[in-house]
């Protein structure tokens, strides 16, 4: 089930933070592993990465598309995410009970929706009777089209053949489709996965928007932290699309058309904008010959351009206060560069020392000693990594304590990092943790497949995954101090607080005590 996709997308950035390691690590030779990784480019530009591992007869398979929420067109926020839903709807043959009738029925949906949409956009001037009639007509068109489909056929085929963990997620940087298969079913995956991007059929488009609306209600509107994140990001980014909601504004979701979605697909789902990574019980030569046969069918198309908008330098602190019945929470963010920038590993080291784990500065002072917070942590590279992004601190105050008290301490601890140099031991810890985390990451086929694809996407070369150790080992205390001073300034900061609304009756009761 794709239930947790939004959450995964939200935290994807954290999963891929600070992989590092070294040949010198206790006799384990990473270069041997690196040498077993195979890569190949198809003529149409599709990149293939294979890591053969034969411990169990299974293989993890990912398709990484270099498109995400940051690429959503104007008026269509959330479209990258919508397309991810639509990629499970099949192809002309997979999913249809009547391929002859279906196109006509879909065209009727499109025509009706176009009329409905135009009338709706008149707002208060819309003709209510006409609207009602069109809505009825739309319902009928949807029902008629639904009558000739074989719902969920695409997923059913993969799952009945042993597909496990069939899933997909959209982040602001990428859209990923993942599954693990018994390794003898490799060809089925090659055929199906390429087919859905070769000849997608966006059936059930209009009904699926309602599913996404429910997803938005579940993950944003009825979840206090969901609301806070949305307000926070829209305050932090005034120009760059990282500030737009990943799942889309409610009005935009209701406005999606099949035409807009298909245009978006054609622009971004080009073979040269996609990477497939396979880790498990497969042979590279088999993978390549199958990929040529199936993925090779997709025609070469021009690669899409990256986002042109650059977030302007922030000119002063921005602040959002959200009132909710929930208990208080706070997030603070500072603009930082993208993942390929030379400062990024020093920033990773800094946020590690500041707010990751039980020995971090913020945990020790705020949770352990002063007990002003029950949870506090910091991260760099959220909500994305491909474009200049944020370093963030998430904080939940302890009962009876306030966001304001916590905020003050967080700034004090950051000042210490600006004013006092770290010791080499502090950094050694960061390096050791990163190395151990990297080795642990190697044990999962799915984890490795995603890492390889991520580095391929962000750097244009998966090998960078194996170079990060050198980068992190070069970090000095002076580097950390320099990035702390450079990025963690008042004027570069956005603060979002969720403050509890005390209901009147309850407040009355409290004051009588």
């Amino acid at each position, binding site marked *: 089930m794709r239930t947790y996709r939004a959450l995964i997308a939200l935290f994807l950035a954290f999963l891929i933070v600070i992989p590092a390691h070294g040949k010198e690590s206790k006799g384990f030779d990473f270069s041997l592993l690196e040498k077993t990784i195979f890569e190949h480019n198809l003529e149409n530009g599709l990149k293939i990465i294979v890591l053969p591992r034969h411990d169990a007869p299974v293989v993890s398979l990912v398709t990484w598309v270099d498109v995400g929420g940051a690429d959503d067109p104007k008026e269509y926020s959330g479209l990258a995410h919508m397309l991810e839903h639509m990629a499970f709807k099949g192809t002309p043959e997979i999913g249809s009970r009547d391929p002859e009738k279906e196109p006509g029925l879909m065209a009727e949906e499109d025509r009706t929706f176009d009329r409905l949409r135009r009338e709706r956009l008149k707002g208060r001037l819309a003709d209510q009777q006409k609207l009602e009639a069109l809505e009825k007509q739309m319902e009928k068109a949807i029902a008629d089209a639904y009558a000739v489909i074989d*719902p969920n056929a695409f997923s059913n085929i993969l799952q009945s053949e042993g597909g496990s963990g069939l899933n997909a997620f959209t982040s602001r940087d990428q859209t990923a489709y993942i599954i693990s298969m018994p390794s003898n079913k490799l060809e089925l995956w090659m055929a199906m996965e390429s087919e859905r991007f070769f000849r997608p059929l966006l059936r059930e488009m209009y009904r699926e928007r309602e599913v*996404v609306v*429910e997803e938005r209600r579940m993950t944003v509107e009825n979840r206090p932290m969901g609301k806070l994140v949305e307000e926070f990001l829209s305050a932090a980014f005034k120009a760059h699309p990282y500030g737009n909601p990943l799942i889309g504004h409610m009005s935009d979701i209701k406005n999606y058309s099949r035409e807009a979605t298909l245009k978006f697909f054609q622009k971004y789902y080009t073979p040269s904008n996609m990477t497939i990574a396979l880790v498990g019980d497969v042979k590279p030569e088999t993978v390549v010959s199958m990929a040529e046969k199936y993925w090779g069918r997709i025609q070469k198309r021009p690669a899409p351009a990256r986002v042109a908008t650059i977030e302007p330098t922030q000119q002063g602190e921005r602040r959002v206060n959200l009132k909710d019945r929930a208990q208080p929470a706070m997030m603070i963010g500072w603009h930082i560069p993208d993942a390929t920038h030379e400062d990024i590993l020093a920033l990773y080291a800094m946020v590690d020392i500041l707010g990751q784990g039980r020995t971090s500065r913020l945990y020790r002072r705020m949770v352990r000693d002063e007990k002003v917070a029950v949870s506090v942590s910091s991260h760099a590279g959220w909500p994305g990594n491909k474009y200049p992004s944020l370093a963030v601190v998430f904080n939940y105050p302890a*009962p009876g304590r306030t966001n304001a008290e916590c905020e003050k301490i967080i700034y004090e601890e950051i000042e210490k990092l600006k004013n006092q140099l770290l010791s080499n031991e502090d950094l050694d810890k960061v390096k050791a943790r990163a190395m151990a985390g990297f080795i642990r990451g190697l044990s999962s086929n799915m984890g490795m497949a995603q890492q390889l694809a991520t580095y391929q996407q962000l750097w244009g070369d998966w090998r960078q995954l194996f170079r990060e150790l050198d980068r992190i080992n070069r970090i000095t205390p002076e580097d950390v101090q320099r990035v702390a001073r450079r990025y963690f300034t008042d004027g570069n900061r956005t603060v979002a607080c969720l403050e509890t609304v005390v209901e009147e009756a309850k407040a009355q009761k409290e004051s009588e005590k």
Partner: protein
Amino acid sequence: MMKSTFVKNIAFALLTILLMSQNPVLALDLKALAYPPLNEVVIPEIEEVKLENGMRLYLLEDKTLPLIQASVRIHGGSYLDPADKTGLADFCGSLLRTGGTAKFKSDELDEILESIGGSAETSMDIIAGGLNLSMLSSYKELAVEIMAEILQRPQFEEAKFEQLMVAAKAGISRRNDNPGQIGEREFDKLIYGKESPYARHTEYKTIAAISRDDLKAFHSRVFRPENVQMAVWGDFDRKAMLELIKKHFDGWEKGKEALPPFPEVDYKFDSRTSYVDLPEVSQSNVYIGHLGGRLTDADHPHRIVMNNILGVGFGSRLFKQVRSKAGLAYSVYGVFTANLSYPGVFYNYVSTKTESTVKAIRMIIDEIRRIQSEEPTAEELKLGKDRYLNTFVFNFDSKSKIIERLVYYDFFGLPKDFLNQQKQMVEKTSAADVSAAARKYLKPEALRLLVVGAVKNLDEPLANLKNGEPEALDITIPE
């Protein structure tokens, strides 16, 4: 020919024309694919050893990565908590690792582990506790020593106890912040009873009653070698590891009493409708079901297939009806769960906008009735079975899955080939078996239903469902 007519037709669908005309259509014939046989699953040999004091060990050498990993299962959990000290086991589970040991003060242990990138975490749930450790194998001596300290000699340091108390209070104060969290908690209480060890939860009063002496007493009662199963795998020599573990655990004294059995569940099938009114939300969280069963019920494999057809996954009837066809939900599912220790739950979940809540409830109840009355089609049966059978290999794709399953089965005395027995029964399951299981275990006439939402704005009053008089649940947090 179907294909060429199809291509002509689609040309009228203006939106897809571009894709279709750019390329010659290379047809995909999935049925023509021939799969090679699956490479054999090699199940590693796990050495099982019982120490003289009763502690059970499971050892597996695995040189793939320079890691040592351990998973320890401790029999005993919050089912043992006195009602007025609910939270005791949970506190113990947390402080084992964070409250310091005889040799390592809490800060020191944090420092050691984080400076080498190791992790050791402990917790206790309703029926068992757990310790999970992962370290580079170069630190294997330290790993075993840390486990021995955590399990045998925790100190529950005063300062850490206070810190945990703050966190526990915060947990209580925040427990009504998310509608989904409210629903899960209250539905468990609706099924097992609010006082039941399987559903009750902490209150300010119950945690305030917990003292460090209680923790020490709980620890010395439960943390005894005969209650402990320790699985260790990774890059080490098996013999040397056994000696190392013996050195640290042989001297651990056996307990004086056996822990009481898991309490029975007292359940009467009846219809009830409850609700939590949250006027400000735009979406309802709905739970529908009744008591479930046990993993050892002879026909459980039939229920596995039934679950897949009714409510688990993309191809299920609930997904198809409520999500795909009606567009009423992003999340909808239904599953009959089975445990070994106490009965599971049959529960169905949907989150849907306030204005379609009762409509979605009716759809779900209809589907529960339909799985009883309407035999699955051949297609549904095949999908339901294949999804289990063809993913079976994923039960063996990691060392931790293999070894942890062995530990769990061993505790409950299940045969080693239990999973294979289940698989064989799934293979033989017929459409009639699925219907029979549905009729035997599902009771659409006796459902308990919970709605967390803006109850006054629903599409219909809940009373219209005629599933018992709707009853409001008060979720105010007691002071």
